[in-house]
């Protein structure tokens, strides 16, 4: 349930601030310094960066201060600063990553359409993902 933020709550007290990674329900990944948290998992993130991942590439969009409503948080974790630089992922510019994302979204939509078509032929229908957390 909520073991995850019992460490971070106490980790706030260490001298070096820790970066945290937050995954939101709509699929966004935010990385920033967690400044405050409450019992609903509402978060205050400082110097936040929204990281978009596409394949092996990623791009960072600086966002500033984020206040996240707790119900939208999927998970929250600490980033090991040493391991952070140790990644096989490649950072690219914002424009490039946005373009990649768009392409990926398009491909996904097309495959989704095909799926729905195939299911329809078998007489099954899956509800639209509007109300579900899907990304």
């Amino acid at each position, binding site marked *: *349930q*909520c*073991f995850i*933020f*019992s*460490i971070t*709550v*106490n*980790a*706030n*007290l*260490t*001298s*070096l*601030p820790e970066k945290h990674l937050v995954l939101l329900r709509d699929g966004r990944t935010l990385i920033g*310094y967690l*400044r*405050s*948290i*409450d*019992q*609903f998992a*509402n978060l*205050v993130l*400082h110097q936040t960066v929204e990281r978009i991942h596409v394949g092996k590439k990623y791009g960072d969009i600086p966002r500033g201060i984020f206040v996240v409503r*707790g*119900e939208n948080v999927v998970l929250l974790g600490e980033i090991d600063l040493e391991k952070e630089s140790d990644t096989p992922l490649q950072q690219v510019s914002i424009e490039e990553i946005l373009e990649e994302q768009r392409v990926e979204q398009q491909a996904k939509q097309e495959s989704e359409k095909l799926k729905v078509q195939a299911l329809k032929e*078998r007489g099954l229908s899956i509800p639209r993902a509007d109300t579900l957390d899907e990304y």
Partner: protein
Amino acid sequence: MFRNQSLEDCPLDEDEDAFQTLGEEDEDINQFNDDTFGAGAIDDDWQEAHERLAELEDKPATARELEDGAVSDEMELLGHHEENLAERLSKLVIENELEDPAIMQAVQTQPPMQQSGGLNSSIWDGSAVLRRFRGPLLTQILCPKPVHIRAPMQQRYPSPYGERMSPNQLCNVSNSSLLGHPFPPSVTPVFTHLQRAQLLGGAQAGRMSPSQFARVSGLVGSPLTSMNPKLLQGRVGQMMAPASGFRAFFGAPPPPAPPSSQQQHPPCPGSHLQNLRPHPQMFRPDTTHLHPQHRRLLHQRQQQNRNQHRSLNGSAGDRAGHRSSHQEQLRKDPYANLMLQREKDWVSKIQMMQLQSTDPYLDDFYYQNYFQKLEKVSAAEEMHGDGPKKERTKLITPQVAKLEHAYKPVQFEGSLGKLTVSSVNNPRKMIDAVVTSRSEDDETKEKQVRDKRRQTLVTIEKTYSLLLDVEDYERRYLLSLEGERPALMEERKQKICDMYDNLRGKTPGQERPSDDHFVQIMCIRKGKRMVARILPFLSTEQAADILMATARNLPFLIKKDAQDEVLLCLLRPFSLVLYHLPLGTVTSLLQQLANLPQSATVPAPANLHLTAVLQNKFGLSLLYLVLSRGEELQNSSAAMELMQDNQWTELMSMATRELLRIPEAALAKPVSTPSNLLSLFSRYVDQQKLNVLETKLQLVQGIR
């Protein structure tokens, strides 16, 4: 009122004056508008007016103010609360608090309910304590201007308890003071369950959140009494005149259970009211409630940092190191430690409270099972005597005894009857949905089919619930007392019977004429899985019956299973059942399976049944199982049941004949080929045919 007067003065009967008077009215109306909404309404001296009002109606006035603020989310309006708080407090400072009639009365009503106890009695040495509270509290709150000026964070959350009392002490106090029956009868009806829950929920968490603290004080107008709910009770009791009582209830915002995410809140206050056991878990030092692994990590990191800073500063003492590291940290990162340790503890405590559970299996099934599996794995590893024992400590969550508390609906003082407010604890029917059953004529074929399918689905769901219950009985058995066990067993038996009836379609009193019900269930994927799970619980006859029904209808089921391919899940339970069956049953099973006629005289033109069976993986595997079992039985039995033996032999010869006829290409690949099939067939056919069979059925696989 002015307006009414003017209207009465110019009655509309008189037409000649009518327009004139209307014109006059217009002017008046403009004037009135102005007075109400426009420039005239602003009384420049609102502060004075406000103070006057405040003096007149001390507490109710503040409640009214709070009404607007308290509606929205508490955290967001923290600033406003503080503003009000500061103002209110400044008005409420009375030099000599002992003269405050409310406090005096409160103090007087409390003593009869007090129990002996060191801490309790110290609180109730009224004035001394109050003075103690007031001092540091007021100096901290009165001084700063409210929130819009960016005050350093420390001041935002002033120590509500005064320096002398630690938060832990307070909690002990409030908890212990709640033991027994704290509320005198005169006061009880005043405080609803909701508000009690809120207050106690707040006290519960070890401290009240700054906003809760403000909200509660809104009720009474003094933050001091809010800290001790009992004092609060007294004050509230005193001031609750029927009219003001109404207002005070509005002061507490409606959400019946404060933050809906805290499901534990309603039970907790109740439990603490009646639960005489203290809860030491709540007041552990700050790291104890961390998961052991996390705690270790955290300490490690702390150690590292300490070492780092020590080396940086080159100072010997730990303390010095800490201080300078602290400063350095502030220099590096001015936003660090925005949350005070106290606040973090507070959040952690709430999280721990949320983890309290009366029935962990019910609340957190997957977590429990996951950890059980892990433990089993590690225990198994240990058995092999491998490496050092891995420390696999679990986070111990406090277990609370489940307590029943009746829901008491919200009551307003002086009103008749109860409000029907629907909440989580008290769901109310909102819509009257009437079920209209269609007449027979309207139904078309498709609708009938659809309804039938729905019926089947409902049956499956019901049976599944029974199944889950039955599977759970073992665990319950272990947890139950000796006396309860026979009853549990009875229940279990009954449920198993019900399941079986559901499966076969209960017909009142008579033989089950048709497999239809069962077949319908078996057409649905969930139904098949469910049957596989139910089989172990059924008696041998019942299980055999199921097997027979399956065998009888196998081609149909195979056809229906084409997309799902779930039939294979039934193989294991079927084979288990087979091991318990006598030869006679096995024989009839084979007969059903192969759809072989009773006597060998009638040569069947083409055995489509058997063909279908053989072409399907499940069918073929099942056939093999049956044959193998029959062979085993025949080998073992001492030729006692001659009749059955003959039948078996006949069937076998027929079966073999059929098998020979079927083209090889059409055969499916079975799950497993039992080893005794070859010897089985060798009895009934000659060598040549045996060879044919061998190759066809690939009975010889590699090693012979």
